[in-house]
C-alpha cells in the first residue's frame, strides 16, 4: 500500500528475467503515454492510500469511499500535471485533502450532524494484532480505539495535522507543503493538537501509558 518513489526511467529487464515491479513514476509516464495496464496498476496502488486518508479526515466510510473515488478521477484527469520526480503521494494527498475539506465545508453549510453512533471505532479499526506479547495486542487496540474516539472530538485543523503526521507519517516538510504553512508552524500546531488529544483522553479518564 506504500506509494514508492523511484527513478523515472525504467531499468531494462534482462531476457528471461521477470520484470521488476514498476515504480509509481514509471507508471505515471506509461499511463500518460496511454497504457491502460499502467493506469490500472496505478489506480490499484492509489486506491487504498486515498481511502485511508479520506477516512481519517472524514471518519465516515461511505463519504471516504466517495471522496477517494472522486480524488482518483481527478488524479487521472490531471495526470499530465503530476511531476513524477516528486512522487505520486503528495499529489494524491493534496487532492484527497481538498476534496475532504470541500465535503466538510458542505456539511457545515448544510448543518449535517453526524451521529456518534455511526462513528464507532470498532467499525473502523481492523482488529489486526501488530504488537508482541499475549495481551499487548488487546491493550493496543483499546488504546487505538480511544485515540480514534478522542480524535473525533478535536477541531478539524487539529485532527488534520494529527492525521497527517501520526497516522499518515508525513514529514514536516510534506505537511508544510500540503497545508501551505511554515515549517515552524507545523511543529507548534502539531504539538498543540497532540496536547489537545492528551487532554481529551485524560478527561475521559483514559490517559495512555507509554
Amino acid at each position, binding site marked *: 500500500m506504500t506509494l514508492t518513489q523511484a527513478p523515472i526511467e525504467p531499468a531494462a529487464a534482462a531476457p528471461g528475467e521477470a520484470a521488476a515491479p514498476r515504480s509509481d513514476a514509471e507508471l505515471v509516464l506509461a499511463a500518460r503515454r496511454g497504457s491502460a495496464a499502467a*493506469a490500472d496498476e496505478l*489506480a490499484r496502488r492509489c*486506491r*487504498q492510500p486515498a*481511502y*485511508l486518508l479520506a*477516512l*481519517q479526515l472524514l471518519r465516515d*466510510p461511505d463519504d471516504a*469511499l466517495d471522496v477517494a*473515488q472522486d480524488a*482518483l*478521477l481527478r488524479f*487521472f*484527469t*490531471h495526470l499530465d500535471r503530476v511531476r513524477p520526480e516528486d512522487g505520486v503521494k503528495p499529489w494524491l494527498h493534496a487532492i484527497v485533502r*481538498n476534496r475532504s*475539506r*470541500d465535503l466538510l*465545508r458542505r456539511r*457545515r*453549510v448544510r448543518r449535517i450532524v453526524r451521529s456518534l453512533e455511526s462513528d464507532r471505532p470498532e*467499525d*473502523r*479499526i*481492523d482488529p*489486526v494484532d*501488530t*504488537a508482541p506479547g499475549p495481551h499487548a495486542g488487546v491493550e*493496543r487496540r483499546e*488504546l*487505538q480505539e480511544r*485515540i*480514534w474516539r478522542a480524535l473525533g472530538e478535536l477541531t478539524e*485543523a487539529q485532527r488534520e495535522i*494529527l492525521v497527517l*503526521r*501520526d*497516522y499518515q*507519517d508525513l*514529514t*514536516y*516538510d510534506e505537511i508544510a507543503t500540503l497545508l*501551505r504553512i*511554515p*515549517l*515552524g508552524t507545523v*511543529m*507548534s500546531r*502539531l*504539538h*498543540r493538537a*497532540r*496536547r489537545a*488529544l*492528551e487532554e481529551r483522553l485524560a478527561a475521559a479518564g483514559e*490517559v*495512555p*501509558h*507509554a
Partner: protein
Amino acid sequence: MPEPAHPAAAGVPRSEAPRPDAPCGRRFPEELLSGFLDGVLTQSDQQRVRLHLEDCPSCRAQVAELAGLREAALTTRFVLPADDQWDERPRTGWSRLARRTGFTLLVLWFLAVAAAGLWGLATGPASVLEKVMVLGGLAAAALLFASVLADRLRTLPGDRYRGVQK
C-alpha cells in the same frame, strides 16, 4: 528515546523566546518536545531539549506519553473497502468534461429562455398564465441563487480554506 534529527529537518527554525508553558511550568518552549519526538530539531535545539529532559521528569513523562500515542496511531489498521466496492468509473476525464459542458449548456439555455420570456412580456401582450410562468420561474431562480449566496457569505469569515486550490 527518539532518533536524532536528520539533516533534512534542519530547516525547522529555532524556537523563539521561551514561554512558561511547558508542562513543568519552567520557561521552556513546549513545542520543542514534539520536534524532539519527531527528530526534526536543529542540533542546538535538540541538545537544549536533552538537557532539559535530564532534570525534568514531567517533560520526560510527556515525551514518553506522546511517543506512546504516536506509536499507537501509526500502527492502527483500518477496515478497508473490498475491491468490488470501487466504481469502475472512466479515468479519462471524459465524464467530467461532459458534465461541465452539459452544465454550461443548461445555464445558457436558461438564460436564453429567461431573456426570451422577458422580451415577450415587455414587447407584446401576455396572458396571466404566461406572466406567472416567466416571472415565477425567474423569482424561483433568484431565490435559490440568493439562498446559496447567503450560505456562502455566512460561512466565508470562518472559512480558513477559501484560498485552497481545488
